[in-house]
């Protein structure tokens, strides 16, 4: 089933005259990893932010489950099943790993009016947190304070928190940045296993990793898409090579 979960049409975003993304369109389908690669400052993170609703596009439209969500706020999109991770780690350093995930999971059971029952006893969010921790392979650290984790573990937690909200679409901004080879391996297998249930957008500079997991690749340079397609086609695309990949080693 080719099940389009998220699509973006002709997105443009400007920062005071600088065109950070320029008419970018893409679709995310359940069961695929869609990688976005491109030079530094090409607008990849900006694209993720626009899709997630953190930045408003100047032009273009975004559809989630075939419904237009361009004017929706980020939290509303998140509740509708859109999760993201950040290029710079954004965890709650003073809380434990489990609490980090629990707060994220609880977003689906907010219940403003319920001001007296302790958050810690919320069955739903505890379960969701445990599940996310297990998926991300953080069980051994689940009671540890997040701020004390090593960089790589923090990156894993970052992903776990995104998973805890049970998103269907995952937007991952450089999840491998700063990870060692071993963690990279683990993250890639996690992505492969998540793929079945989710539609994943992966922004990454680690080409080995990208070519390993991506089903489709979009290449951006200076805000524009210069190539889009199957990994093999992209790898051999001369434009992509001169603008981004460089000569093979």
């Amino acid at each position: 089933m080719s099940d389009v979960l998220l699509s973006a049409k002709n997105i443009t975003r400007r920062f005071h005259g600088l065109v950070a993304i320029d008419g970018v369109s893409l679709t995310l389908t359940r069961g695929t990893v869609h990688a976005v690669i491109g030079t530094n400052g090409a607008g990849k993170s900006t694209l993720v932010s626009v899709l997630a609703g953190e930045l408003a596009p100047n032009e273009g439209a975004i559809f989630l489950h075939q419904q237009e969500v361009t004017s929706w706020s980020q939290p509303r999109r998140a509740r509708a099943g859109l999760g993201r991770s950040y290029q710079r780690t954004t965890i709650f350093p003073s809380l434990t790993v489990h609490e980090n995930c629990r707060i994220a999971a609880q977003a689906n059971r907010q219940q403003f009016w319920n001001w007296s029952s302790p958050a810690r006893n919320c069955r739903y969010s505890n379960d969701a947190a445990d599940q996310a921790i297990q998926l991300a392979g953080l069980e051994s650290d689940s009671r540890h304070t997040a701020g004390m984790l090593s960089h790589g573990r923090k990156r894993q937690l970052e992903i776990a928190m995104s998973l805890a909200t049970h998103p269907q679409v995952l937007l991952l901004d450089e999840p491998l940045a700063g990870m060692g080879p071993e963690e990279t391996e683990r993250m890639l297998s996690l992505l492969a296993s998540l793929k079945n249930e989710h539609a994943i957008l992966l922004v990454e500079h680690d080409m080995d990793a990208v070519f390993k997991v991506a089903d489709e690749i979009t290449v951006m340079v200076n805000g524009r898409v210069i190539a889009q397609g199957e990994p093999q086609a992209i790898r051999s695309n001369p434009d992509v090579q001169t603008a981004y990949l460089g000569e093979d080693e």
Partner: protein
Amino acid sequence: MLGDYYISLVIKIMIFAIFALSLQLLVGGVGLVSLGHAAFFGIAAYVTTLLSPESGPGNLLILLPAAMCCALIYALVTGALALRTKGVYFIMVTLAFSQMAYYVFHDTDIGGGSDGIYLYFRPELRLGDMVLLNIDSPYSFYLFTLGCLLITWIFLAVLMRSRFGAALTGIRVNEQRMRSAGYSTFNYKLVAYTLAGALAGISGLLYAAKDGFVNPELLAWEQSGLVLLMVILGGSTRLWGAVLGAAGLTLLQEAFQSQALFGDWSSHWHLTFGLSIIALVALMPNGLIGISAQWRNRRSAARPAPSQG
């Protein structure tokens, strides 16, 4: 009489403790530092005074909701605007809004202008004609204030443990992440801000009832600053930090002003008070509530504190 004095001192501490707790919800709970919290305190005090009849005691059943509502409405309106800004700018916008309220009471005749107005009778709790609770005597007023403090404290403690509280904690630590998880953080902050305003309203009412005199200085920035100091000095990470801060600052002022304790220096009490604030800041990085932990650390080997990166 002397007993009365100490009761009234304790009552004052408790009123400020409620006031500080309400701000603590913002500072320690959501990470919103407001320098205009006295506006809610003062508005509630004015509302209490203005709505009380001149000829007899007002009814708490009307006054308390009215005072809290007015504070709440002002908090809702100003909060909706102020929460568009962040950090220091938020501090300053809240200051601006409280200064506006200050000038309204100071420069117009609504509440007796700069001289202030009196509340002639302490309100009582009345149902129809039956008086359920009279707080005219110092002791009953003391109990009433204590009750209010406990209710506020318990309410906040329960609230901070709830999902709402957990969400506030998340927003304090990392708002961006909370939004991406699906929380409409603006609404949360607004609710917290409004709640804090209403709770400050309780203390405003109590304050008006305590002395029966209300004036614009209750809304001045110095008052907001003082309550913020209580929260910081006590330690903003725990509820009892606010209570400790309120007690600590009030008692310090009291002690340094006391001729019995400091003799002629009491007329220079600003100096001793200022110096002791400086000393407290220098020696207690985490406020009063951090002292015990600090002692524990002192005993274990001296180690460098984690850097803030």
